[in-house]
C-alpha cells in the first residue's frame, strides 16, 4: 500500500492547476455567463488538449489511458477553479464514444459539448444552449439525444454560471446502453461530482483563510481569533477527509475491474456523501468568514456555494448514494 499520489499524478494535477489559475480567473469565469449556455468553447478545446476529457480513454483509442483515480485529481482542480460547463457529461461522453457511440466522437477533443441529465419529467437541463448532445441516464438504461429544444429557460438560475432549461419531457432519443451501462455512468458521475466538490471546498477554505489572515478587526487579523480559526479548521478537516475518500474510491474502482467490486461501489457512495457535506460546510464557512461581503454578489463565495448545491442533484446525486449505501449496510 502507498496511498500518496505518485510523482506523475502530482505533475498531472500541478500542470492543470497552473493552467486554470492563469486561464480561469475570477473575471474570466464571470464572463462565461454571457456566452451561449455558459460554456467557453475555446476553453473546452484547451482542456481537451490537456487530456481532460479523454483521460480514461485507452491509448489505443486515442486517449490518455489513465484511470478514475487520476480523474479524481483532475476533477478536483476543475472544481477548485469552478470551471463552468458540463464537465462530467463531456468526460463520460468521450468514454461512450470510445465504446462505440460515434455521435460523441468529438467529445474527447472538446468539439462536441455533451450534457448529462437524469431521466424523468419535467427535465431540468443544464447548459442547454451550449450542448451538441445530451446523455440521459435512467434506471433502465442510457439514451442519447441531440441538443434539447423547446424548453423554458429559467430567468434566475441558482448558479449564474449554470443556466437551466426546463422541458416538460425529454425527447425519446437513441438507446446507447442498458441498466449496467446506466449504473456505470451513475457511479462514475457520483465519483467525479465528489471530486469537483472537494475542489470547490478546498478553494472555499483557501479563499476564507486568505481573508482571515488579511482582515484586521479589533487591531488584529480575524484569523487569530479561535472563533474564526476553528470554523476554518473544521472546514479543512472536512476537505482532507473527503479528498482521501474520493481518491480511495477512484483507486478501488480502477482495481475492481469492469464490473466493479462491491467494496468499490460502497466506497464511491460513501465518498459522494462525505464530499457533499464537506463542500456544504466549507462553502458556507467561506460566506460566514467574509462577513457582510460574503453575502454579496460581487464576491466569488456565492459561486462556490451554489455550484456545490448544483452538484448534489445531478446524475449520481447524493440522495441516490444514501439509498445505495443504505442498501449495502
Amino acid at each position, binding site marked *: 500500500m502507498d496511498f500518496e499520489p505518485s510523482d506523475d499524478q502530482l505533475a498531472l494535477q500541478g500542470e492543470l492547476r497552473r493552467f486554470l489559475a492563469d486561464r480561469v480567473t475570477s473575471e474570466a469565469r464571470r464572463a462565461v455567463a454571457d456566452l451561449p449556455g455558459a460554456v467557453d468553447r475555446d476553453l473546452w478545446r484547451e482542456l481537451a488538449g490537456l487530456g481532460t476529457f479523454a483521460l480514461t480513454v485507452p491509448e489505443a483509442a486515442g486517449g490518455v489511458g489513465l484511470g478514475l483515480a487520476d480523474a479524481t485529481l483532475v476533477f478536483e482542480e476543475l472544481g477548485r477553479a469552478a470551471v463552468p460547463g458540463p464537465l462530467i457529461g463531456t468526460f463520460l461522453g468521450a468514454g461512450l464514444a470510445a465504446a462505440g457511440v460515434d455521435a460523441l466522437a468529438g467529445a474527447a477533443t472538446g468539439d462536441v459539448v455533451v450534457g448529462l441529465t437524469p431521466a424523468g419529467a419535467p427535465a431540468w437541463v443544464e447548459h442547454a444552449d451550449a450542448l451538441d448532445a445530451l446523455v440521459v441516464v435512467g434506471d433502465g438504461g442510457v439514451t442519447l439525444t441531440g441538443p434539447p429544444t423547446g424548453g423554458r429557460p429559467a430567468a434566475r438560475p441558482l448558479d449564474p454560471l449554470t443556466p437551466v432549461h426546463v422541458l416538460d419531457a425529454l425527447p425519446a432519443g437513441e438507446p446507447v446502453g442498458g441498466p449496467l451501462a446506466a449504473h456505470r455512468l451513475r457511479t462514475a458521475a457520483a465519483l467525479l461530482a465528489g471530486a469537483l466538490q472537494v475542489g470547490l471546498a478546498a478553494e472555499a477554505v483557501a479563499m476564507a483563510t486568505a481573508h482571515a489572515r488579511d482582515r484586521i478587526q479589533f487591531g488584529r487579523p480575524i484569523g487569530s481569533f479561535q472563533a474564526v480559526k476553528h470554523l476554518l479548521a473544521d472546514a*479543512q478537516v472536512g476537505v482532507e477527509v473527503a479528498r482521501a475518500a474520493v481518491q480511495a474510491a477512484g483507486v478501488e474502482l480502477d482495481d475492481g475491474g469492469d464490473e466493479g467490486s462491491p467494496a468499490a461501489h460502497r466506497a464511491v457512495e460513501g465518498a459522494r456523501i462525505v464530499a457533499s457535506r464537506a463542500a456544504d460546510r466549507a462553502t458556507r464557512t467561506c460566506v460566514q468568514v467574509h462577513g457582510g461581503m460574503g453575502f454579496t454578489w460581487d464576491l466569488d463565495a456565492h459561486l462556490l456555494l451554489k455550484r456545490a448545491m448544483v452538484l448534489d442533484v445531478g446524475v449520481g446525486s447524493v440522495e441516490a448514494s444514501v439509498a445505495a449505501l443504505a442498501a449495502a449496510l
Partner: protein
Amino acid sequence: MRLQETPDERRFRRELRDWLDATLPTLPPEPPFEDWAAKRDYDTGWQRRLYDAGYAGISWPTEYGGRGATPSEELIFLEETERAGAPYVGCNFVATLHAGPTIAAEGTPEQRARYLPPILRGEHVWCQGFSEPGSGSDLASLRTRAVRDDDHYVVTGQKIWTSHAQVADYCELLVRTDPDAPKHRGITWIVMPMDSPGIEVRPMRTLTGESEFSEMFLDEVRIPAGNVVGAENDGWRVAMVTFGFERGTAFVSELLGSMRLLADLVDIARKTPQGGATAWDDAAVRSELTTIAADLDAQWALTKRNVSRAARHGNAGVGGSVFKLAYHETRERMGEAALRLLGRARLAFDDPTGLSPRHLDHVEQTLYALSLSIAAGTAQIQRNIVGERLLGLPKER
C-alpha cells in the same frame, strides 16, 4: 496512489491471521470489570505471547528488539488483531507506544538494555506522569519539583490522569528542575520506579464508572540521577520526540471498533419496531446511520493516507489532528443515534433484553465518546493545530 498490498504485506497478513487463529482460543478468560491486578496479568500475558511469536514492539527498530515493521504492516497488524477480537494493548500502552520508543530514541545504551527487553517480554508495566491538576492543555506549565540532592533527585508534586498507575512498575515522569528558566527549558524526563517510598496512588472514577486513571501524589520521592533520559532541563524535547513517531495508526483499533458498533446499530434498527414497521424503515434513521457509515469509511481512507505519508516522510504530520477532529464528531453523532434507537433500553449499561446482536455496549460507548474530544489534546487544541500549522493562521497572542 496504490491501496493493493505488496506480496510481502500479503504474506505478513496471512501469517498473522494464522497465528491469531491458533492463539486466541488458548487465551484465559477476560478479567472482571475493575479488577486491575487481573487486567495487568491478562494484558502482560498477551504481550508475552506477542513477544514469543515475534510481534512485540511491532514498530520498534530491530536493533532494540522490535520487529521494525513498516507503517503499512503496523496497520495490517492492528486491523487483523481488531477483526480477530484479540486483546487491546491495554496496560502495555505507555510502555510499548510511548516510554519505550522514547528510551530507544533518547536513552543511553545502559538505559536501553535495562528497560526495553522487559517491556517487550511483558514483564514491566509503565505509566505516564505528565499532566498535573494545573497543567492540562498547557502541559509545559507543570510544577512538580525535582531538587538535586547528591546523586538523587527529590521529587514533590502531584500528577493526574495516570493510566494504570495502580499496577505500574515504572513511571515516565516530567519534573521541573529549573523553576527560573522559561517554562519549556526547565523540564526533565526521568524514570521513576513505582515502588519508591513517598508515592501515593488514588484511583479516580470516570463518568463511565471505571477507574483506569489515578491521581498520583509525590512526597519527597528519591529518584537516582542516572534515571534521567536525555539531559537535565531537556525533558520537553525528549517528551515531544515520541510525537514524531506518530505513524497515523494511533486510532486504527478505535475506528475499526466503531465500524462494528455501527453495523450493530443497523441490526438494532432493523429489529426495533416503529409505527407498524421497523426503525430502519424510517428514512431519517436510515439516512443518519448511512451518513455515519460513510464518515467512518472515509476516515479509514484518511488513515491509509496518513500511514502512507508516515511511511514516506517519517511521520503523519498534522494528519493525526485532522483524523481526531473528524472521528470524535462522528462518534458524537453515532452516540446520539444510538441513544435514540435504544429508547428506554438506554436506562442500563448492560443489555438485559439482548437488543445488541453483537453484545456491544452502546450506552458505555456513547459516554466514552465524550473523552475523545478531551484526551490526548482537546478538540479545541487540535483545531488550533490545524488552523495554525495546516492553514497558516496567526496565533491568538
